[in-house]
């Protein structure tokens, strides 16, 4: 089963979100696989978390739809997964999904593009698996039959540029494509010495790419790795990039409303601004060293809404440190409602968590050698936390 969700009839032609998610952990033709060995396996190994990453992203989308967080109704989901045995054991439902072979990918991609024929619609593409880079600015995604003999080394792969170019508004004005597109490329971009020897190594086209008509897409591409570097994953868990993206979509990249809908939201630009910090936090937790590269293309767009203001981790400190023991800290909402209060700012700095929003704060020293301080501020997610430093020295 590839098309695991199809609500097109329900939407009666209204624009919706068409998602295409592909996660590959098990590769048939690299060491540990069950097929004839690839002639040039590029030193690759079996993976243990990328199919799970695809699965979890698809679950996130379904949850977001259920909680009315998406900017448009979720219309269709194409899902291809090639999990490892351990992943199958952990999440048996993955076994019912079609494998991420080149043939399945081509069929799913073409259907996905056909479905996304409303210019007001939106597409989401997520790939997690092995990737290589033949040259700068290049990204090739390896499908589960990568290296299948005979044929070229990259016959069972996909060129991201071909995928992206094929989603541009077609030259034939009568044909439309969703102009909001989102790409997550959760794969390495490591060059291999083989590419120097064999020039580019061709990747078969996914589809015929006609030169575009006016390309006014909003189509950011979030690469998990900068050119020439690797992506990382927690074995048996999920990829670091997916942790960071999820944290951005759910909280870290949330910004207050700038339109009539009062809900906090996550936009392309807010994710681009927050992603480095989110990935650094994930790196810290998992001792990783990944760096990602978001490439913006077109106008800002809303990716998701939050049902409630995001939780904001804050720390308050006073200067001088010695005053912490004799200072009371009070936080009230813009409407004057008590939000947080502590008689002494200990431990110092003092951590607390409140929902995002505007707050007034006051630091009241019991000792007259210090001066009281009060002000207002917007508390919104920051990593590792939002620091509130208050000077009470006279």
């Amino acid at each position, binding site marked *: 089963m590839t098309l695991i969700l199809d609500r097109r009839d329900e939407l009666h032609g209204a624009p919706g979100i068409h998602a295409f998610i592909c996660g590959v952990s098990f590769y048939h033709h690299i060491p540990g696989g069950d097929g004839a060995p690839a002639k040039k396996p590029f030193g690759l190994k079996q*993976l243990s978390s990328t199919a799970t990453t695809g699965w979890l992203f698809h679950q996130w989308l379904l949850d977001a739809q259920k909680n009315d967080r998406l900017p448009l109704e979720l219309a269709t989901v194409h899902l291809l997964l090639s999990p490892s045995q351990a992943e199958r054991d952990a999440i048996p439902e993955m076994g019912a999904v079609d494998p991420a072979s080149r043939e399945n990918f081509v069929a799913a991609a073409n259907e996905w593009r056909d479905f996304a024929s409303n210019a007001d619609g939106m597409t989401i593409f997520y790939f997690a698996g092995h990737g290589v880079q033949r040259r700068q600015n290049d990204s090739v995604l390896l499908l589960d039959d990568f290296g299948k003999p005979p044929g070229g080394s990259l016959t069972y792969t996909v060129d991201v540029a071909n995928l992206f170019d094929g989603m541009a508004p077609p030259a034939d004005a009568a044909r439309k494509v969703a102009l909001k597109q989102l790409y997550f490329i959760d794969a390495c971009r490591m060059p291999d010495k083989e590419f120097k020897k064999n020039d580019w190594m061709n990747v078969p086209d996914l589809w015929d790419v006609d030169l575009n008509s006016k*390309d006014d897409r909003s189509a950011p591409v979030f690469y998990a790795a900068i050119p020439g570097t690797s992506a990382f994953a927690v074995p048996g868990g999920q990829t670091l990039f997916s942790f960071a993206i999820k944290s951005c979509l759910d909280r870290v990249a949330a910004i207050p409303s700038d339109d009539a809908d009062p809900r906090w939201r996550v936009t392309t630009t807010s994710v681009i*601004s927050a992603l480095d910090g989110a990935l650094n936090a994930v790196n810290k937790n998992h001792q990783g060293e990944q760096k990602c590269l978001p490439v913006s293309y077109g106008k800002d767009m809303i990716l998701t809404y939050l049902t409630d203001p995001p939780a904001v981790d804050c720390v308050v400190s006073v200067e001088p440190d010695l005053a912490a023991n004799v200072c009371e800290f009070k936080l009230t909402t813009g409407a004057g409602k008590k939000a947080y209060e502590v008689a002494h700012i200990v431990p110092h700095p003092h951590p607390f968590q409140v929902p995002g929003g505007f707050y007034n704060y006051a630091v009241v020293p019991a000792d007259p050698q210090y001066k009281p301080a009060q002000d207002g501020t917007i508390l919104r997610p920051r990593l590792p936390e939002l620091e509130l430093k208050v000077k009470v020295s006279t």
Partner: protein
Amino acid sequence: MTYVRFRGPFGSTRLAGVGVPVQIRTPELQLVKTVMSSDGVTLDPGRYIVTARLPAGHEITRVLDAGDAEQTVDLRIDTRAAQPLESTETPAYISQQRTPNPVRRAAPRRKAAKRSMTRGFEDYVLAAEPISAPEAPQGVLRCFTGNPLAGPMTQFAPPSDVLEKGTDVVEYRIKNVNALCFTQSVQPDLPPVNISLPISQQRGCILLVHRQPDRYWIEVHLENPDANLLLGYQQNRAMQEEAVTAERLLEGKLDDPIAAMVGAYSLLRFGELDRLHNWSKHLMDWMPWIPDGAAIRGEHLARLGEHQEALEVFLAVPARGVPMFADGISFLLDRLRLYTSSRAATQFPPERVAAAKELHAKITEFSSYVDFEKIVTTFTGLDPSKPDTRPFHGPLPPGTDCAAAFL
């Protein structure tokens, strides 16, 4: 109604008049207006929350109770009486914060990381370099002019007069000139790094040499403070602020082609194709020696679907040289790849496709040494016309002595 002015956020002479985007919200966080701090704003009486974000990530929040009288909101971070130095403010508030070093030494990896992580997707070897006590770093700056795509470059006198000096940063001014120029940092055991100098007849640029315990790293800043702020937002991926700043920059009458290019790259990034209008053509014709004018015009035409004309414009790039900004190289790589692909190539005259293939191969080879995390074109190699990744060994060549600059 109340008229509100802003003071700051910068205090140094060079940056004093620079405006940053300011958001004005109600206490319920409904957005009222986004303005530039260099402008005033008229507001209804009431309470407002004013926020501004600087390129390096500092966020300034002020609460404004607007009454009937004119008011000034102080956005300064540093409110001390003494005027801050440019060499202090620029690195602190504008410089890039993500990846300061164009080339990093291989860092020793932690064994714990090896245990708990899989490097996605490929095995790797732990770097064996030990952590050792830092020595006083050595390094020289050199300068080149010419077209790296066309052969050997000409060396010219490197900067020698220090514009300003801080504890760990020295500033040089690169004078304005109508030529494609590069600065090169040569340090022992590191690949020499070449950085494009975004200068024109109208404006020079500022070279910042940062001293670290074991090396120097070089940053280029535009002399035009507004464009430099925009570049800071770009480099630090502060895109909401970048969009507002770019729009504002291009509203003004620009006499600085480099600033115009920086703004145009932003407009392309944000898909503001209509706003670029004929402006990209003007940019291309205005300064025929600047490669970026052709790269911007070509990408603009390509996005408009004018592919025949776009290819002609892209083919004009090699005669001009390597774009000063990495976005220009990306545009060339991506478009030439598309135009030389088998299906698309049938839509162009064969001789133009052949020329495009030749250029694509040349740019692809060159771009192997380009750091695409940098906004300003940055690549490695002792000979800028033959980039490579070889570390430099041996006696340092003549040039501006970085160590001496800090004495």
